[in-house]
């Protein structure tokens, strides 16, 4: 099912009545293709959860439209939308067994959709097998681990074959190891069922690793929509650049003069086609190459060995953060006693942003 969001806006009245309305979602436009896994990504309070609630119908938009396929569902109550929602805290009914929890949505069906007990049982079993909890059907939610509860919640959302599946921070209550495993699981389940799935997260790793497309949001405004790699490789503004990537991008003050990028007094990169101006420079940690004759010189603080890679931590007066972090292959040895290190930079991993608006300034990297 294709999901279309048109000029979707949600305002909340300010709590102290005098203040302005809080705009949780501002003019959201997006056509979610059928059968894809979409990650809604942003820091807390960016409006991603509100967007999810608008799609499932727990909130009604102040303006704009939501379409499922060709049906306008904007004002439709949630129960008629045919969406499945997995809550952050799962919201499993504690007094019902796993099986009864999964059966619950099916027992609500009425009229022509009404199922026989046999059919319900089969559907519930199929859903349980899909998320691999068919061994636990007689247990109560309190007897399950966090990961198992999560699976039950997904099974419950999937059992009635929703047109759209929504997951609110699906991994936030799991520990690190389980998180890795579960996100693969979500990907697998989504691909097996082919249901259009939207999930909300504040963890960029999570979103990048399994989504077909990600939507980066900030303060209710969509910043960028695209395939994870594309967004990472070509962020449209400073916020998206800093939000994606671990370790995070290094941000420095710089200026462009005569088609060259200067950091401090050193011309570090050729940036053809960019006019003379002050800029913010974003340099991905993997943009650095050790080069004794390289143009970019930094004061070495320490070297961290991480096995596969080596992380070179250094300082530079123009850096906005206390440290600059460069990731280089472990085979390239760094002299730990040296005061300074020189790097050359890969043009396609360096981004320029307008110093005032933070908007991306494009140049042709050779």
């Amino acid at each position, binding site marked *: 099912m294709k999901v279309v969001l048109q000029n979707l806006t949600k305002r909340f009245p300010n709590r102290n009545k005098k203040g302005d309305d809080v705009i949780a979602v501002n003019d959201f436009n997006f056509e979610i293709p059928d059968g894809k896994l979409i990650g809604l990504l942003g820091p807390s309070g960016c409006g991603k959860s509100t967007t999810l609630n608008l799609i499932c119908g727990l909130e009604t938009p102040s303006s704009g439209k939501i379409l499922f396929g060709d049906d306008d569902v904007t004002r439709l109550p949630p129960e008629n939308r045919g*969406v499945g929602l997995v809550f952050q805290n799962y919201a499993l009914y504690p007094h019902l067994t796993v099986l009864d929890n999964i059966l619950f949505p099916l027992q*609500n069906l009425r009229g022509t959709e009404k199922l026989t007990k046999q059919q319900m049982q089969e559907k519930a079993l199929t859903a349980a097998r899909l998320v691999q909890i068919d061994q636990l059907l007689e247990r109560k939610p309190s007897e399950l681990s966090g990961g198992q509860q999560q699976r039950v919640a997904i099974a419950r959302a999937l059992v009635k074959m929703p047109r759209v599946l929504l997951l609110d921070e699906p991994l936030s209550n799991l520990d690190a190891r389980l998180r890795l495993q579960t996100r693969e699981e979500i990907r697998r389940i989504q691909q097996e069922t082919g249901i259009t799935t939207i999930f909300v997260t504040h963890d960029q790793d999570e979103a990048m690793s399994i989504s077909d497309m990600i939507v980066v949001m900030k303060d209710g405004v969509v910043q960028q929509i695209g395939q994870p790699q594309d967004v990472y490789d070509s962020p449209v503004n400073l916020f998206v650049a800093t939000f994606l990537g671990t370790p995070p991008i290094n941000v420095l003050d710089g200026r462009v003069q005569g088609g060259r990028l200067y950091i401090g007094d050193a011309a570090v990169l050729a940036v053809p086609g960019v006019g003379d101006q002050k800029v913010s420079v974003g340099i991905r940690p993997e943009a650095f190459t050790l080069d004794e004759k390289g143009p970019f010189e930094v004061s070495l603080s320490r070297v961290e060995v991480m096995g596969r890679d080596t992380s070179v931590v250094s300082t530079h007066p123009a850096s906005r953060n206390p440290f600059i972090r460069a990731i280089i292959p472990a085979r390239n040895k760094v002299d730990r006693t040296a005061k300074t290190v020189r790097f050359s930079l890969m043009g396609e991993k360096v981004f320029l942003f307008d110093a005032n608006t933070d908007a991306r300034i494009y140049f042709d990297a050779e």
Partner: protein
Amino acid sequence: MKKKSMKGWLYLLPAILFLGCFMVYPLIDVLIYSFEEGYNSASQTYTGIGLYNYSYVLRDPYFLQAVRNTFLLVIITVPLSTGIALLISLGLNAIKPLRNLFQTVYFLPYVTNTLAVGLVFMILFKKTAYSDGLINLLIQWFGGNSVDFIDGPYWAKMFVLCFYTVWVVMPFKILILTSALASVNPEYYSAAKMDATRSFRVFYKITLPMISPMIFYLVITGFIGAFKAYSDAVALFGTDLNAAGMNTIVGYVYDMLYGNSGGYPSFASAAALILFAIVLTITVINLMISNKKVHY
């Protein structure tokens, strides 16, 4: 260490003194009283030990009347008040504007003097030479026949007693149930909504199980409270409840102890212990049922 250990008991001493004198000793004493036959409170002598007090009480028509009244009161008011309180709490839970105002109003009977307000009820229901009373006028207005609810037929008196009892116990039940309802995680309702659950099913399958511990708590305390009914009856029918035929078991105990028919602490003790046995049995049965039914 020795000094420290004494200290604990020292802090407890006042409580132990009070409890010992006015709770533990009376408890033992009431048992003894109940078996002392022919106790004379003037000379403080008795003629023998045995079960005569119990058999006397159990054959006393006033006691049987009191037992009948009390059981009727319990059977009628406990389910009724719990049910109505649940409906009102659900109604309260569903609204936002004026909710605080309603809650405050509903709580008022809790802080009023049972005897004092009972008097108002008596006036509303009583038929006198001067006026048939407001309730009777209402009944007549609807085309019914007026009845004296205070000095009239038994069913009418029982009706007023139940009505007043429900009125009095309602605030506590509404309060407990509204806070129980409010503490149900709203995500469950959202989840149910997503699954197109009909509202009756939401209530029956989610709300009710979630608040079932509180409902059982109310039923148990309701049973205990209703079995001890007394001052409501006094408020409506005056202190001579035997004459009015509206005595309760507790009323019987006090009448045996004091007042016109008083001076028989042995009979009073026996009756009180019978009441205690009844309440204990019912509470145990309640707890057994609730252990089976209450989830968690």
